Every structure is written in structure tokens, then in C-alpha cells.
């Protein structure tokens, strides 16, 4: 990975993604040890700027940082009354003045991580910006596919659900297609982005026809709020057309896997009993998430791959 930040999967390219996934193997092994810790980022400080509540992602990053022996500082601005009303710029400048090596940022507005890079020198990691990108999610998803199926290249992957509003979908499309997978988006037209002419994907509204052909079914969360915007008539109709029901799971090939970024709406996009099948690898995604985030943190804060190579003593 070149450059100082991880803002977008689209910027990484196949080589950048491969570098991270390869390094993740090392951190999977570290995470499996009885003492899951290495001193690699000792002395570094990682700050969390989460403007959107997200325990899962934040704890995953926090675990990753601590396993690398970095210190962590938490600014849960979503729940802190002190910082409400303060501009993002003022908040991050204050945090960085305290001496921070990396800011991990989540915000409901697209583009905030990019804006922050203009104001501070610290490394910025995008943990989700509005409907735009969620790079580490895509990386852990790609790693999980590689782990389950051997490779992402050549795989047929269906991404099902509210693609229009999903940063996970956007990052996944970028990552999976960069690695050579064939991606099909499955959703009603109201839940697809308005213009897909230059996206390297197929599009379908017939989930039953797509399922037998794919190696991976990636389900997106269906949020109840979408109903009030007339995007779908009802959750029931959504599940009937696009939910991974027990009946639909039987359409899948034997070794096809089911993935979900979590948290799952059991009974909506995924039937409760389907979520517990062995082919639903959601817990693997979560486990891999820590190792992937360790790889990202190490590459950005420790590996010094941008430093000029000098004499390397033994």
C-alpha cells in the first residue's frame, strides 16, 4: 500500500489488496496464539473518531490495535455531549494536538475522511463514510472468500439487497472486481444506484435465477427506514423477492457460501435457520476482521514501506 492513508478500496488496486491479504495470514497466526500480541506498534497511538455508533467495527479495530501493542484513545462523538456542535475540523485538530499517529474515522457523511486528511498530518483510516466506502470490510470479506474458496479470482459473487445506500456494497464491488471476480448485483430497481453503466457488474432482479450460479451470496442489511421512503412496499415483499429463505438456500451449489457484514436482520434478508448453517461464514468474517485490521494498521504505521531502504543489518 503506498501513501499514508486507507480511505478507499478503489485506490488500492489489485496489488494493494493482495499485499494486505497476504500480510493478514501473519496476523491470523498471531491472533491464534495463547498470547495474541506482538510489540510491532509499541509507542504508537490510534484514536477512534466514531461519529456513528458502531460497537462491532470499533471493537474490531481496537482489538487489532491492542494486539499490535499500540495505545488506543476513544472519542465516541456519537454519544459524547461535550463534542456535539464542535466542527469536525476543530475536533480532529484537538485530538491530533494530543499526539496521535492514526485516526480511525466513521461518519454518516460521505467524504469526511478525505476532508480530515486536508486538516491534520495523522494517518487516516476510513471505517465507513456515509454510503460511500468501508474499505476494511471489503478487505476482510475478500480474505474470507479466499480462505473458504481458495481465491477471489474467477469466483461468481452475488451481492443482494440495498446496494444504493450501502458503503459495504460499493467497497466490495471495487475489491472483488479488482481481484478478478464476476459480480452480480441483485435488488429491486429502487435499491440500485441510479447509474450503473460503467460499473463492472451484472444486474438482476431475479434472485432465484442467480443463486444456482454463484460461489458466494453476499447479503446486505435491509434497513426498516427504507420502507418509509417508498423504496419497497413492505419488508414482507422484500423478503419474498430477495430474502435468503430456506427454500432459496437449496438452490445454491454445494460449496457456495453465504456472507453478511452484520448485524443480521434474521427473518428479513436472511432466514433465522439459514444464518446458523455451516455455509454461513459470518463469524469467520468477524474473526478475520481483526487480523485484516492488524495488517492495515501495521502497513500504515509500522512497516515503513515508504521509507527509503537503507542498509538492513541482521
Amino acid at each position, binding site marked *: 500500500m503506498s501513501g499514508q492513508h486507507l480511505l478507499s478500496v478503489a485506490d488500492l488496486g489489485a496489488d494493494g489488496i493482495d499485499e494486505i491479504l497476504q500480510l493478514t495470514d501473519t496476523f491470523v497466526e498471531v491472533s491464534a496464539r495463547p498470547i495474541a500480541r506482538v510489540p510491532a506498534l509499541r509507542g504508537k497511538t490510534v484514536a477512534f473518531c466514531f461519529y456513528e455508533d458502531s460497537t462491532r467495527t470499533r471493537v474490531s479495530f481496537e482489538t487489532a490495535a491492542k494486539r499490535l501493542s499500540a495505545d488506543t484513545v476513544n472519542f465516541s462523538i456519537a454519544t459524547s455531549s461535550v463534542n456535539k456542535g464542535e*466542527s*469536525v475540523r476543530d475536533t480532529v485538530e484537538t485530538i491530533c494536538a494530543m499526539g496521535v499517529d492514526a485516526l480511525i474515522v466513521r461518519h454518516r457523511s460521505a*467524504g469526511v475522511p478525505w476532508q480530515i486528511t486536508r486538516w491534520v498530518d495523522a494517518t487516516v483510516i476510513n471505517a465507513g463514510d*456515509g454510503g460511500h466506502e468501508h474499505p476494511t470490510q471489503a478487505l476482510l470479506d475478500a480474505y474470507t472468500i479466499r480462505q473458504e474458496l481458495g481465491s477471489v479470482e474467477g469466483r461468481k459473487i452475488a451481492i443482494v439487497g440495498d446496494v444504493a445506500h450501502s458503503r459495504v456494497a*460499493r467497497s466490495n464491488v471495487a475489491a472483488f472486481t479488482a481481484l478478478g471476480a464476476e459480480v452480480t448485483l441483485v435488488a429491486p430497481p429502487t435499491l440500485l*444506484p441510479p447509474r*450503473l453503466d460503467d460499473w463492472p457488474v451484472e444486474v438482476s432482479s431475479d434472485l432465484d435465477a442467480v443463486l444456482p450460479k454463484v460461489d458466494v451470496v453476499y447479503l446486505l442489511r435491509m434497513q426498516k427506514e427504507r420502507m418509509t421512503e417508498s423504496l419497497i412496499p413492505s419488508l414482507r415483499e422484500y423478503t419474498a423477492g430477495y430474502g435468503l429463505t430456506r427454500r432459496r438456500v437449496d438452490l445454491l451449489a454445494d460449496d457456495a457460501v453465504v456472507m453478511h457484514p452484520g448485524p443480521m436482520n434474521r427473518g428479513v434478508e436472511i432466514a433465522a435457520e439459514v444464518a446458523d448453517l455451516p455455509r454461513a461464514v459470518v463469524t469467520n468474517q468477524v474473526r478475520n476482521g481483526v487480523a485484516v485490521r492488524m495488517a492495515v494498521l501495521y502497513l500504515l504505521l509500522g512497516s515503513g514501506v515508504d521509507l527509503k531502504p537503507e542498509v538492513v543489518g541482521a
Partner: protein
Amino acid sequence: MPDVDLVIRGGTVVDAAGSRRADVAVADGVIVAVGEGLRGDRELDAGGCIVGPGLVDLHAHLREPGKEEAETVETGSRAAARGGFTAVVAMPNTTPAIDSASVVREVQTLGREALCAVHPAAALTVGRAGEQLTPMAELADLGVRLFTDDGNGVQDDRLMRRAMEYATGLAHDVVLAQHCEIEALAEGGHMHEGAWSSRLGIPGIPAAAEEVMVARDLALARLTGARVHFQHMSTAGSVDLIGKAKAAGTRVTAEVAPHHLTLTDAEVASFDPVFKVNPPLREQSDVDAVRAALVDGTLDAVATDHAPHTQEDKEKPFDSAPPGMLGLEYALAIVLTEVGVPIEQALAVLSWQPAAIARLSDEHGGPIVEGRPANLCVIDPTAEWTVDPADSASRSRNNPYAGRKLTGRVRHTVYRGEPVVIDTEAQR
């Protein structure tokens, strides 16, 4: 001949009648002579330059009263003067809105000390709430000639019809100007709905949000016979509708903002809220269509939609930041550089045509002949300059043209005979 205060020497005079090499002599705020070899106590060098009627902006947000930290009537007028404007129609989405006699008078009073003529537009509805018409007759008696809820369009179809009908019965000839945006279609959007919004995951405002209101108002204009003016037209569909309506004889005029002539939605990829504006920056095919419509006369005027915002406001997250960009100091240069029309046509769309729409032709827009008020601008059409955001008379810095190389610049501006800008520097 009375004592000549000022002579603009060595330029080529251009107005609606044509162009000729001539000097212009000014005394007591009035043009007293146009000809060769004029001398006076004070001289403005116009060698190699075009001397045209002062520009008229149909659409500027001067922010006063209510948001003086972004701009005031004075600072806005200074920026206008640097851009060659001698008259500006000030938009009524202030706080309080310009919807009553007292606020109209307040802005007129502020305008008295300004570096250009400041003509407040009045809101079409009280508080711009879209429910009740403002006292149009009373406000027109005070001199208001343009009514608009700009910032928003009038959503209620029946109310818009009644506004148009009522306007046709007023003693004064007023124009109803519309910010065409159907809120139900635009709601939640922060940029143009298209390939870029799909990529960036930012909800979009479809072209239809503008076009549906354009179509509605054209039909209502035909129904009522009212004089209607469309503000900041931005889409291919809109200019197509206007072109067809004009061909069929509908009494309609339309303006375009400089940014819609040159910037596209691709700019939003930087996530810099400087590029957030309403109507949003559209895709290339819209920019091409709008440019062509300006060139072929479908669009009558370039109006800046100068919309200053504080740095703090424009550093907010993209979807929270207020829309708008600066324009007064760049409009002419953008038209000359990016659209490439001859200077006569540039002056037509920036000076006498908007003057006519705003009913300001008595004082602005030329012709440049003896007896007319001395509202003039001197333009160096070959001046090459790079836009430096710090070099601006505006209080704000939300400038989308930073670093852009432009050709053509206003050198001097004369307002009521007073040289308010000399060699691009405001004189007060």
C-alpha cells in the same frame, strides 16, 4: 460642455448598437460625449480594452440582513464592481426575508452607499414559506421589479398560478422568477443524480426535479400570460423545454450561472463542499447543452448566483454543508474563456439583456451615448490571469475556480460616473 470629471480613453466602445473606437467623457454621473480625442482632468486608460455598459447581475446573494459574517451589501457590491457589475438584483432569502416594505427599504438604504446599484428582489410568498403571497403591489411601488422565493421553488401549483395571474394586473411591469426545484423529487439529494452520485454513494437530485417545474411554469405562463423568468438553468432537458416554448411564442426568459457553464459533477469526487451548489453541478452532456443554449439565445442571461458562505460552513461534511459558490468577480471571465463567445455577445448576456429582464434598462445596459447614466465597465479581453481566492473583495472564500487560468478581465468599473474600480482595485 460641462466640466468633464472623467474620460475613458483609447478603448473600443461596444453596446447593443455595435462597436466603434471612441473615448467616453463623463460629468455629474452622466455620459456627456462619445468620440475621438476627448480629454479631461481625470483619465482612465482603456487602451486595447473594450468599453461596455456596466454588467447587470440578476441573481446575487448579499446575505444582509442576517448573515453578515458571510457577506454584506457593501462587500458584495465591492465584489460586484470588481466583476464589472454596476447593478445587482439582491436575492430575498435573507433573515428576515425581503418580504415586506420595511426590509425592502432596509436593503435599499444599505445599497445607497454601495459600489453598485443594489436592487432588492422580494419574496413571492411571505417568509418564502410557499403559502401566502407577499404584498406585491406595495413592494412594486417601492421599486421591486423581480419576485422570487429563490433558495426554494414555489411548490404549490395553484399558488403559483394565482401569483402569475395577480402579477399581470399590477401597475408596474414585474417579473416572477423561479428557482425550479420540485422538493419531493430533490429531497435528500446533495449532488446531481448520475454516474458520479452512484459511484460516491451520495443521494442525488435528478434533472427531473428542475425540469418538472420548468414544464409546469411554462404551462402556467401560457395559461396566465404572465412574464416568467427561470433562474439558474442547469439541465439539457430544461433548455430544451425553454427553446420549444420560445419558438411557440411563450413569454419566458431564462438565466444560467457561470459554474453550470463549466463545472461538472466530477468535481464532487474531491468531497470539497465548495463544489456543492443548488442546482447541483450536472454531467457533461448538461454542461454542453446549457452552453449551446446560451450561444444560440435560448438562454437570455448569465447571472452569477453569487452565494457566499463562511469557511466554517463550507468545511462541514458534504451533505451538511450549505450549497453555493462565489461568482461576481469571475462571471465575465468564465463566459469569455469557457464559452468562447465574442465580446458583444458576452456583454449582451451579462449587461443589456439582464438589464431588460430586470426592468433596469433606463439606467443600465447601455447604449453608450450622450445623456445616458455613466454605468460602464472597461474590459481587457486579452488579460491572462490565474484565480487567486485570496484576491477577492467578498467576505467569503468558497471559490470553485481556485487556480484556474482565465483570459479576459474587468479592468475598470464606473458607477454613476464614479470610478469604483481602477486596474482591478476597488477604490473604496
